[in-house]
């Protein structure tokens, strides 16, 4: 593990893994939850809800 972390390609491989996770999330339909939250005023975020 330590050797992997020191490898110059560790960042690229991790970024690729991130893209795969994003793909899984999009496939599961998580983007619609993000969208629904982001297009409506988040009352909790602004301190009202």
């Amino acid at each position, binding site marked *: 593990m330590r050797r992997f*972390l020191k490898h*110059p390609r*560790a*960042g*690229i491989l*991790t*970024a690729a*893994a*991130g*893209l*795969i*996770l*994003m*793909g*899984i*999330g*999009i496939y*599961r339909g*998580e*983007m619609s*939850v*993000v*969208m*629904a*939250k*982001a*297009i*409506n*005023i*988040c009352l*909790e*975020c*602004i*301190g*009202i*809800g």
Partner: protein
Amino acid sequence: MDKRKHTNEWKRHRVQALWAFLTNSYLAGFVQGKIYRGKLKNLCVPGLNCYSCPGALGACPIGAMQAVIGNWNFKFAFYVAGFLMFVGALCGRFICGWLCPFGLVQDLLHKIPFPKKIGTFRGDKALRKLKYVILVVFVILMPLFVVDILGQGAPFFCKLICPAGTLEGGLPLVLLNQSMRGAIGWLYAWKNVLLLVTVVLSVIIYRPFCKYICPLGAVYSVFNPISVFRYRVDKEKCTGCGVCKKICQMQVDPVENANHLECIRCGACKKACPVDAIRRF
């Protein structure tokens, strides 16, 4: 040396300001007191940027993560976790230093003169771990387990802590909407107190929110040692003069660890090094 440092700082601030403008350029929102509702809101922005800011074009990754984790249907946010992993693995905390609007606010506040600026203090190192606790407790565990009868969790970090939401969303929306002004209560007051404390502390301490509170910085910090964009110190060139350590406002010693968890890649050490020993990987 000071001149070199300042040149780099203002170059960085210009990039920060440009990015903040680009990601918050729905200007009609500031006039009408509404928020952008277009398709770009599907996408997360890399920095801490409240999606209830009237100008925001994208989604805040921390808010989005809590929304998905707190949703009864999902409970794990692959999309947002993947996004953070992707951005973190490429850039690490470069995002904090260059692309976070709330980082820019703190940077500018720290330029306000104050008789005694505080660099570090007793307990500083331990307090830096607080952001990891906040990430785990308020962003992950509470939205996951503290749920209503429908199984929905609230965005507890946004609700109880985030001063960026108050500054970018709360203040403009409440000022622009009479109906919202009528709905404010103790929570709004609490969040404004937190914002005020953050503002005052930012004048005295460099980026206190980033150092001690920000869960997004906590996530990106984990990727700092492996990110594609990172620093290395040429040990043959380094004279051990200590200028880099002295100039770092995040109290990192680049010679000891050029990719420390707290390094926000502002580049001050790189510019200050008299022998150009600090380089990009």
